[in-house]
């Protein structure tokens, strides 16, 4: 019962494979950069095909690159090729009309997107059990740049329009009218129930088709006579005959477009018919998309390469056989037989879903419809136990088919309810984010509005600007190990997004690094440039506010100063060491924070870091930075200046999950005001008199320990007094008159700061030494030195030291009060 959900006849897929043309000789483009391999260009171009969803089109699922420029195309495949019917079952005229209608509809859909099929034949029209069609393999010509990236012609001889053979100008090659001709031939085959020119050799077929140029009369009629089908032709209803005649106009200009054909009276009756199975209100197919199924299939062990190998489409041959006899100086290769594998391989490999069915066999139907807003004990009773692998490492969670199944079902429903479900999305994202939906989930976390496409469309992304050269040289250096980002299409899209951003954010300028910052968004939304752009646009004010100002010096330096303080707060030993060897964040951390690590880590790591960043605020990168230092801690502590800086010029492998967990931990343990900055975006923070303000950069650079706000201090006093230790450094008289509840008094003047020995502070030394997890808040007043004391504690290796901003006096205005008078207490 449950499995049947997956067992729709439409949920099937297959793979085909071919080789892209290899570059010969010259390996550099005109810009001096290496030429992009054709398989990568194809890879980039083909991404768009994955967005096509139409009842008469098979869905493209995946493009995979193999060795030696191999491209594998994974696509839906269901039903039977029409060629298998021809010669067997004679279709009725109304059936032919229906097919004609569906062909025009499907092609029109493609032509609207500027995709020319070019390869249409009865073999790649799949007939479904209900008689509807689905076009298969319609994107080859498109993804290969009009066939230019492969060595074989993309066409089916008998179905190709005559102009295809005339090596016409480029514009004509890509004309959608060639498809219309093919429809004409296909319709004739259906009407005559006969394959045309089946007994002719290739050359003869071409000659035949070219002979139509001399045919003064109707081509349809000519074909009918040649195939002894004149009677059928003669008795054909006028409307359908007309359609075929128009398709077979020798001059492409005289052939109507698919759109024009669809206006034909004859098709009116098909127009309002729902294309699929209208009897059921809720079709089971609709609860899963083919792409999800494909991902789950892969997670359960499905392997396209393996399937191709099993069925003999990928064969390895001994390398010695592929050695050429002669290579000329210009790179021309001679004496090498043509590898038959580089020809068009028409074979299709069907991929069975049995392992998936088995693995998911036990999943309860209820799991497909998780209740989001309403639950009761009774409902709960009938629910299957949740599939729980929460505590396993992220990599395992991402690879577990069943876990991903549950997560995707849940998130898809939540996303469907966005923006109303925003809070729930946020809550669930804290656990983890399923890779398949990451792009959409990020967009939701970044509050992207529904009408984002229009806003992007109107931005000028073309006008030449002075920034262009820099963008131009940065793009080919931006995450180029990634197939999407290194593809031609990827470069074009990245350029457009960057130009749009620069154009739209006149207060900012393009800094090197902005390319890296954009890369994750483009990678996740490769087929939705507008969304990638808007994610970037929403990300900048939230996490790198003002970082891209023409003069960002104050902003960056404040950020780096905060970083130093955060290190001191959590790791005095490391902070002291780095301080002593003059190893400042300026020297290594600018790319970290300017690009939020997107210039530092490979994409897959960035994704995991940002999964968490998007749930945090602009201080989170500081914590990530700290966690990176922490991982390198032992090395850093024993290294001098040169070795430290060398370590960061060539950053060693960082265990990113460990790093993230550590960052989340320090993020939670750090009061917000510790990392508060003057330059953070007010839009995301509410300021009150009890927050920190008015600290100059010079102050900040002098203070090695951070300040804490009165607000955070009172919050901690009220909610978690055991987690803090308040040290009042005013004189005993002031202290006894009025002090913070639970605070201890270490008068500033009683301590000799000469050497870094914690015993110097007297009776409370032990308490401080044992304060490890407690936040040490130093409270002073205008006449106490607020630098020396924290510096002393820091040098003594006391962690979590901070200074109350505004001093003791600021606390007097807090209500209800957190102060007590010693006189009354004792």
């Amino acid at each position, binding site marked *: 019962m449950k499995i049947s959900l997956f067992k729709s006849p439409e949920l099937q897929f297959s793979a085909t494979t071919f080789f892209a043309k290899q570059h010969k000789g010259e390996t*550099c483009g*005109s810009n*001096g*950069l*290496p030429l992009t391999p054709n398989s990568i260009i194809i890879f980039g171009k083909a991404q768009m095909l994955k967005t096509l969803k139409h009842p008469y089109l098979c869905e493209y699922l995946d493009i995979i690159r193999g060795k030696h420029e191999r491209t594998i195309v994974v696509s839906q495949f269901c039903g039977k090729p029409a060629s298998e019917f021809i010669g067997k079952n004679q279709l009725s005229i109304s059936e032919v009309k229906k097919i004609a209608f569906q062909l025009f509809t499907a092609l029109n859909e493609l032509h609207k997107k500027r995709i020319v099929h070019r390869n249409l034949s009865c073999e790649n029209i799949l007939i479904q059990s209900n008689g509807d069609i689905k076009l298969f393999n319609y994107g080859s010509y498109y993804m290969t740049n009009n066939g230019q990236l492969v060595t074989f012609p993309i066409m089916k001889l008998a179905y190709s329009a005559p102009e295809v053979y005339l090596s016409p100008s480029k514009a004509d090659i890509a004309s959608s009218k060639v498809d219309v001709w093919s429809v004409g031939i296909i319709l004739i085959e259906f009407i005559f129930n006969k394959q045309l020119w089946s007994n002719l050799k290739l050359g003869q077929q071409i000659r035949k088709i070219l002979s139509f140029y001399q045919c003064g009369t109707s081509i349809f009629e000519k074909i009918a006579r040649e195939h002894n089908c004149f009677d059928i032709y003669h008795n054909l209803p006028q409307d359908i005959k007309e359609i075929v005649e128009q398709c077979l106009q020798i001059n492409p200009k005289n052939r109507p477009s698919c759109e024009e054909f669809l206006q034909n009276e004859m098709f009116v009756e098909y127009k309002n018919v729902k294309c699929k199975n209208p009897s059921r209100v809720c079709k089971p197919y609709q609860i899963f998309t083919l792409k999800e199924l494909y991902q789950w299939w892969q997670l359960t062990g499905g392997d396209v390469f393996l399937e191709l190998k099993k069925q003999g489409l990928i064969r390895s041959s001994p390398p010695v056989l592929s050695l050429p006899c002669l290579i000329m100086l210009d790179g021309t290769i001679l004496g090498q037989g043509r590898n038959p594998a580089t020809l068009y391989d028409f074979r299709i490999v069907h991929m069975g879903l049995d392992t998936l069915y088995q693995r998911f066999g036990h999943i309860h139907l209820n799991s497909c419809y998780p209740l989001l807003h309403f639950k009761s004990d009774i409902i709960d009773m009938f629910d299957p136990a949740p599939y729980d692998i929460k505590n396993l490492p992220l990599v395992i969670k991402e690879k577990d088919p069943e876990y991903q199944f549950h997560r995707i079902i849940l998130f898809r429903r939540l996303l469907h309810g966005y923006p109303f479900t925003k809070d729930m999305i946020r809550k669930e994202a804290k656990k983890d984010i399923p890779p398949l939906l990451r792009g959409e989930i990020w967009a939701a976390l970044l509050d992207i509005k529904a009408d984002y496409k229009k806003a992007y469309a109107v931005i000028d992304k073309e006008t030449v600007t002075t920034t262009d050269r*820099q963008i131009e*040289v*940065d793009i*080919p*250096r*931006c995450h*180029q*190990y990634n197939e999407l980002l*290194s593809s031609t299409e990827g470069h074009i899209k990245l350029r457009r997004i960057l130009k749009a951003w620069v154009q739209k954010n006149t207060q900012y*300028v393009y*800094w*090197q*690094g902005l*390319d890296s910052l954009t890369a994750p968004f483009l990678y996740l939304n490769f087929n939705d440039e507008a969304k990638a752009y808007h994610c970037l646009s929403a990300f900048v004010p939230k996490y790198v506010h003002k970082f891209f100002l*023409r*003069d*960002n*010096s104050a902003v*960056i*330096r404040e950020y*780096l100063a905060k970083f130093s303080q955060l290190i001191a707060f959590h790791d005095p030993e490391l902070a002291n060491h780095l301080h002593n*060897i*003059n*190893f*400042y964040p*300026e*020297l*290594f951390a*600018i*790319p970290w924070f*300017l*690009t939020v690590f997107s*210039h530092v880590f490979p994409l897959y790591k960035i994704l995991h870091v940002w999964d968490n960043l998007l749930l945090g605020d602009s201080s989170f990168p500081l914590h990530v930075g700290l966690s990176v230092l922490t991982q390198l801690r032992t090395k850093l502590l024993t290294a*001098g*200046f*040169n070795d430290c*800086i*060398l370590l*960061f*010029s*060539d950053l060693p492998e960082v265990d990113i999950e460990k790093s993230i967990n550590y960052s989340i931990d320090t993020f939670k343990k750090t009061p917000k005001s510790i990392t508060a900055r003057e330059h953070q975006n007010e839009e995301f923070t509410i300021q009150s008199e009890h927050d920190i303000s008015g600290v100059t950069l010079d102050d900040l*650079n*002098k203070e090695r320990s951070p300040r804490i706000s009165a607000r955070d201090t009172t919050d901690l006093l009220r909610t978690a007094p055991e987690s803090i230790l308040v040290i009042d450094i005013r004189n005993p008289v002031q202290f006894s008159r009025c002090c913070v509840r639970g605070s201890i008094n270490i008068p500033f003047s009683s301590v000799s700061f000469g050497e870094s020995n914690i015993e110097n502070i007297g009776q409370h030394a032990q308490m401080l030494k044992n304060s490890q997890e407690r936040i040490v808040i130093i409270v002073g007043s205008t006449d106490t030195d607020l630098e020396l004391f924290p510096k002393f504690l820091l040098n003594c290796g006391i962690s979590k030291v901070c200074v109350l901003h505004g001093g003791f006096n600021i606390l007097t205005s807090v209500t209800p009060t957190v102060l007590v008078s010693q006189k009354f207490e004792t």
Partner: protein
Amino acid sequence: MANRSGAAQRPNGTQGKICQFKLVLLGESAVGKSSLVLRFVKGQFHEYQESTIGAAFLTQTVCLDDTTVKFEIWDTAGQERYHSLAPMYYRGAQAAIVVYDITNQDTFGRAKTWVKELQRQASPTIVIALAGNKQDLANKRMVEFEEAQTYADENGLLFMETSAKTALNVNDIFLAIAKKLPKYDQNQGQSGQGQGRRLAEGDQGAKTPGNCCK
């Protein structure tokens, strides 16, 4: 020739000197500064070399007769916006390589600006080399060899056309610089980390090593 591994250890018993020099690479973005350093230090070339943000630091040791020369190399960011960071790196440097791309005239112009700035602001004894990089793309050349040579002669610069890709003249330009640098033994006195420390301290006191990104 540059010695890639363990060159810092002097042959047993000989009285070789060890010298350390701070060298900075300057030049327009994408002319191949990082690529030159990568070729010199690791013997590698990455077609898709990442752009440099801020600066990167690497070291390499070469042997010159009886002297071991250790280069502490600062590879800077080329984008004009990072310009204000540059003084932090060339200040106190004993040598500089100013790089341009022979296929791009503008980068040559920028190189001249850098030379001028160094002549005005850097140490008066600084050894400056001019590198016309991407020599392997000579068929797309936009800056003539003679033009650059004349300019270098007029300004007393070392000059070579280099290619990080084919390794042409890469070690040679570093060696030529090493030869031109005054050598005094650093075995006694200064510790191995002296140069870097000098950089960080800068002129403005310990707390403001660089007016970052101004």
